[in-house]
């Protein structure tokens, strides 16, 4: 059942990619609106990760409509809200009724209500500790995401994460499958490359991804090579 949903979403996204202009993230936002019964969808992407990993530059906001854009901006301005909290907890924050959160987020809840937002669902875009952005959905009336829609949202958030990684490291491939499956070796390899290069986890992930692209092999395969110690990264960027 899970695979059917995934395959259906994949086909829909492929059609978007072929037909419409714009980035993969924009297409994912559009698909969220179409498939998840939400009013708007937006992503905030931390556009660049410096080699020391300390500087996150707030980057592009992709949004399906103006309210979504304002919602993304709002959270960065007031420094609170589901997206900010999703970053803190490392998991999604699902708010089916924003009106019930005035005590939790006084500034955000009232400003969002003025924008006509009644429910918010925030998904962090991250790979372990590597934080890359967030996907935020909103609806103009309250109510939860059904379990089936939540499943779709999580799958789309996985793909958005993969899309952000491609965007950040400047490579563009349609290989999004690796984010969807529990490939623990990718996470282990990221930790190993981090030590090999003396870089942050974010940078290690991008180097791994970059090598997979350059070598033309799936990132899962590169990860396996690293974990089995048949591939090492050395600090001048070139794996040996």
């Amino acid at each position, binding site marked *: 059942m899970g695979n059917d*949903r995934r395959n259906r979403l994949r086909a829909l996204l492929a059609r978007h990619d072929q037909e419409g202009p714009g980035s993969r993230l924009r297409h994912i936002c559009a698909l969220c609106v179409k498939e998840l019964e939400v009013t708007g969808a937006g992503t905030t992407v931390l556009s660049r990760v410096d080699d020391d990993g300390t500087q996150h530059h707030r980057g592009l906001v992709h949004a399906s409509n103006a309210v979504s854009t304002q919602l993304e901006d709002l959270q960065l301005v007031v420094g609170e809200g589901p997206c900010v909290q999703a970053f803190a907890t490392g998991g999604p924050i699902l708010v089916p009724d924003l009106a019930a959160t005035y005590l939790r987020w006084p500034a955000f809840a009232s400003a969002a209500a003025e924008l006509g937002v009644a429910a918010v669902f925030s998904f962090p875009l991250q790979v372990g500790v590597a934080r890359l952005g967030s996907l935020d959905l909103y609806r103009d009336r309250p109510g939860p995401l059904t379990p089936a829609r939540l499943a779709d949202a*999580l799958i789309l958030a996985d793909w958005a994460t993969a899309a952000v990684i491609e965007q950040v490291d400047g490579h563009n491939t349609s290989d999004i499958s690796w984010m969807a499956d*529990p490939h623990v070796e990718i*996470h282990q390899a990221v930790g190993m490359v981090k030590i090999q290069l003396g870089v942050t986890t974010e940078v290690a992930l991008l180097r791994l991804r970059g090598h997979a692209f350059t070598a033309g092999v799936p990132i899962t395969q590169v990860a396996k090579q690293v974990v089995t110690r048949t591939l090492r990264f050395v600090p001048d960027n070139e794996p040996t």
Partner: protein
Amino acid sequence: MSITQDQRLARTFVTLADTLVADFDVLDFLCLLTERSVEHLAVDAAGVILSDQRGGWRPAASSTERPDLVALFAVQAEQGPCSECVATGAPVTSADLSTPHELSRWPLFAPAALDAGFRAAAAVPLRLREQTIGALTLLNHEPTELDAGTLTIAQALADIATIGFLHHRAVTRDELLHEQLETTMQQRAIIEQAKGVLAEYGNLDMDRAFARLRDYARAQRRPLSAVARELAEDILHPSAIAARKT
């Protein structure tokens, strides 16, 4: 069951209940649960899988992180007593995986289990109201028929896991369960990253790296996930846990 065993079991329930404190860590808890399951249920290995909420199941904790066992727990998320258990919400047992019946019942799982040295398997559900959120799997090297008493204890341990999973938040909204399940998935990814850091730094196998991480967290009385996060975020240097070896 002797009085000593009863006492030990009682102590385990108290220990598990005692971990339900403010800085409670789900993966810590599940890890402890699998270790204690091995002890009390007289099985050779135990593991917990959780719903990934995308239609699949993922390993969350196991009594050891030996690579062959990790691989087996990955297979059983697709097929075997564990996936049957989460599909039906009822316990599933197999006393001998090497019989033709069981080999045809689980053509992927049974051979994989036998290859890893396990002849018997059982699974009990982690249930919350009408939902099954995961399963506790038990594996034995020898053909073993688990008796009703053992299954009752296994289910009690699984129930404790479910309570533990949600205890630190008032479970008044379904959203909290969904948030917690996904957060646990992310924490598991962070633990894998931390294992990679330690494995590379100390030239350790992944299961040794995990054992070091777990032992360090316990010695420091700190949540496993928090220590893993600090390693992966350069707040804690790996030299605190493992000696540098190349």
